[in-house]
């Protein structure tokens, strides 16, 4: 920006005390001469746009290109280029490239014997295998069925568990709410991995639960073994441990929401002689469910892709019955995907499965995404 003279006419300067009294008008028409130095022009323009002053004369020369000026600009008004280069490159390499790569991978025959340094070829073999009647397709549908059941059950248990816990702690007759609330929060504070491993030990073949059973003169139960007898034990324990980990966070969220319910509604209900149950089903539940629909969908997606729980519980276990292909009866799609692609080099099949998962969860995520404030709000980031 060159130095130069700008003339600004300050007129129309109305001072309205909250608009009520139109008085104290500035009668002067002032001519202000601004000496414009680098960077100052922006300021003058700001004044212009904020106060509807009018330019009477505007002289501006095109800036001369100069390496020093360019560098200056990179640290000043073009700082966004400097700042965003590295993050954008990082996102390109570690987020966008892998996603594109993976989508393409699903349509090749890479994997099995065909691994580096051999070259793969375009093929739909992976899709054919998944949707055919062979061992692989059979496993896929079995796992998909269990995965959906798991997601529904886990979401329902966590949500209603957390809600009931919040309601219990919210009761008027509970003294020392903070202390009672501290116990679930303690469980919340333990990292999920550690509690999962802890529970795995607790339910293991010679763990404390089995040792209690044998002490009581019963036979030990093999909760997490790899044959058909353990199927529902393992699934049930998975649901319990998942609930143990997630319920405290749902409780915290629900506590916040319950505080937002208009107490007038309850008062009105009391006057009309509603019972506690009626109040819960007609006021509390609709309000909470409505407020947390996006969170609920998010919880469903999270449960659907809950990699950790069965990875820690039954890692390396492949079921010995039911013709499972490199999977156990508790594995979710994402666990199977991991078994296939990372542990056993079935790259293209793994990629195809992750596309299927994405189709299911992506649709749901999109439904949440368009509801979020982040999508609607213009000025915020993340």
């Amino acid at each position: 920006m060159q130095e130069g003279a700008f003339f600004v006419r300050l007129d129309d300067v109305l001072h309205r005390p909250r608009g009520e009294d139109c008085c104290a008008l500035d009668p002067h028409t002032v001519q202000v001469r601004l000496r414009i130095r680098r960077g100052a022009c922006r300021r003058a323009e700001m004044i212009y746009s904020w106060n509807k002053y009018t330019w009477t004369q505007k002289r501006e020369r095109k800036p001369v290109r100069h390496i020093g000026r360019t560098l200056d600009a990179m640290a000043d008004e073009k700082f966004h280029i400097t700042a965003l280069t590295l993050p954008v490159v990082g996102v390109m390499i570690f987020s966008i490239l892998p996603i594109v790569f993976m989508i393409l991978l699903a349509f090749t025959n890479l994997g099995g014997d065909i691994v580096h340094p051999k070259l793969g070829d375009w093929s739909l073999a992976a899709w054919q295998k998944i949707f055919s009647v062979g061992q692989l397709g059979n496993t896929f549908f079995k796992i998909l069925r269990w995965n959906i059941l798991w997601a529904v059950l886990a979401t329902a248990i966590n949500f209603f568990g957390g809600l009931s816990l919040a309601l219990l702690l919210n009761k008027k007759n509970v003294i020392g709410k903070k202390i009672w609330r501290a116990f679930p929060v303690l469980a919340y504070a333990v990292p999920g991995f550690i509690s999962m491993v802890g529970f795995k030990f607790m339910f293991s073949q010679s763990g404390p639960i089995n040792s209690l059973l044998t002490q009581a003169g019963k036979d030990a139960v093999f909760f997490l073994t790899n044959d058909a007898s353990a199927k529902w034990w393992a699934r049930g324990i998975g649901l319990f441990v998942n609930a143990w980990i997630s319920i405290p966070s749902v409780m915290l969220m629900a506590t916040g929401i319950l505080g937002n319910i208009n107490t007038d509604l309850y008062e009105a209900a009391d006057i009309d002689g509603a019972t506690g149950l009626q109040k819960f089903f007609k006021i509390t539940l609709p309000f909470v469910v409505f407020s947390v629909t996006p969170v609920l969908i998010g919880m469903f997606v999270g449960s659907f892709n809950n990699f950790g729980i069965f990875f820690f519980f039954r890692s390396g276990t492949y079921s010995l019955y039911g013709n499972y292909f490199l999977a156990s009866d508790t594995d979710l799609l994402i666990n199977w995907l991991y078994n296939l692609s990372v542990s056993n080099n079935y790259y293209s099949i793994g990629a195809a499965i992750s596309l299927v998962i994405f189709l299911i969860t992506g649709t749901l995520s999109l439904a949440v995404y368009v509801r979020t404030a982040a999508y609607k709000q213009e000025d915020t980031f993340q």
Partner: protein
Amino acid sequence: MKKIELRLLLLGLGAAAFGAGALFVSGAVRWVLLGLGAWLLVWTALYLLLPRRAFNRAFDNVHTYLALLIVSAIFVFPCLWLILASLSKSGSLYDFKGFFPQEYSLNTFRTLFTDDVNGLYPYKTWFLNTLYVSSLSCVLGTVLVILTGYVMSRFRFKGRNAVKQTTLVLGMFPGFMGMTAIYIIMNQLKLVNQLEALIFLYAGTALTENDLGVSKEGYQLSGVFVTPALLRPYDGRAIEADTSLFTAWKSAVEDNRPWMVAGSLAGYPDNKWGHAWPQDDFRLAKKEGEFNTFYIELNLYKNDEFKIAVIDQDYNWGDNLGSTMLADRTYVAGGEDAFATGANCKVLQDGLYGLTFVTDAETLELCKLYVERLGDAAAPEYFFDLAIHGSFVKNAEGQGWSEADQIPLQRNGQNYVWYGEFETQEEGEFGIKNRGSDAWFAGDDGANIKVEPGKYIVYVGLTADNQREFVKVGTPAYYVVGTCGNGAWGDDAIETNTAYQMKANEDGTYSLDVTFTKDDTADWSNGRTAFKVVYGACGKVADEHWYGNGGDNFMVDPGTYTITFDPAAKTVTVK
């Protein structure tokens, strides 16, 4: 009757369960039956003994605390077990008799750091690896997130929205999507089993993480670098306000403030910046089912200015928000900044608007207004009630710009022209206010009109939609106008037209000696001169200030006349 039967039934059941448990069954079932029976018996007994209310309270309290104890045990027990198991002397989980170790020591922790069990459990190395990866990726990730957050909130550049949307969409893709691909890419880059790979990966994907892992009870995180002071677009100036947090927390508290739209609104002249009471027409209504969301539909017209505010009956302003709350500025932008309290919202286009106001009960700056144009505005109804408002218009205490004692203007028939006379003993300035719409009209340059001491008449011309057309001020005088002189009738009532200006006489009348010639006639007047006496200034004359021969013009032959006007009788005599 029914209640008593129910009690008896419960009593019987309890007794049966207890008895069966005690006498016939063995093992775990026995204890269950005993417990159940005892529970039923005790409560039935209490129900019979205690008054109704006391029973209810006792029943509720006992079960509430019982539930609390059970829940707490479920959550605490595994944690406790983990901690105690880690302190086991034997170091193995599998030789406990029952749940807890027999002997305790800190031995396990000692061996963890000293003995790597033949290289199978090099815990020290793992520990250092974790420290290395987490601290480096934390620093790198934080720097990247902070840079991006700062730039996104302070800079407005081409592609900003694209970056934002991409980040959001990427956050939607589950992390595992790239799992296989990242593994293969890392394999190609020979980075598998390298700690640096993890650092790059964590740092690179930090931007796409939606959940920042921070929380505060009673609040929701609304974003990074969205403290209102930081949302101001970058203009080279430093931020001088204290900004304690780079993140903003939305309160989870419900907002019950009576928000209203207050402004000078062409369509709603009675709003008068919140003077309206009751405020029902301007109150924003709570949107059903949405948290802290208010809504109102209004006809807004170009150049309307408003704020959203809480105003009580005595016109005391509480919390109020101007253009800073606008989510986008397509239809409404920043207007005037009165008293530096923040610019008003200014309407840029006529229309029927739906205003959605999302509030935060605690932080005013987090409130946002979303403006949606629903359709064309209904034609506004303007109310005209003009008055002179000036430094010389004083109230009883002698203060100028008096609110109560303005000089009202008269309307000229059904025209959009108003006029009024005033006299001032001092130098001063003034403007004209339409009290019906709060609009303010002043000189051609927008500033107040300055006047010397003297007597003045002011003419204000407006358009039908309350816009200024002209404001003229002059010293009024009596003129003889007609086909004589310039032949411009009313336009001749102007100070420069001294030849036809009437002189004041001592008896209060005005007179003019004038000679009409043949030039002072018009085509239609048959060689005669037509004239009237008018009272005006600046070429403007009000309808009622025309004085003729009855309602008609005076028609005289060329010649010399003395025209006299008597203001008291409003009669004109011609000699």
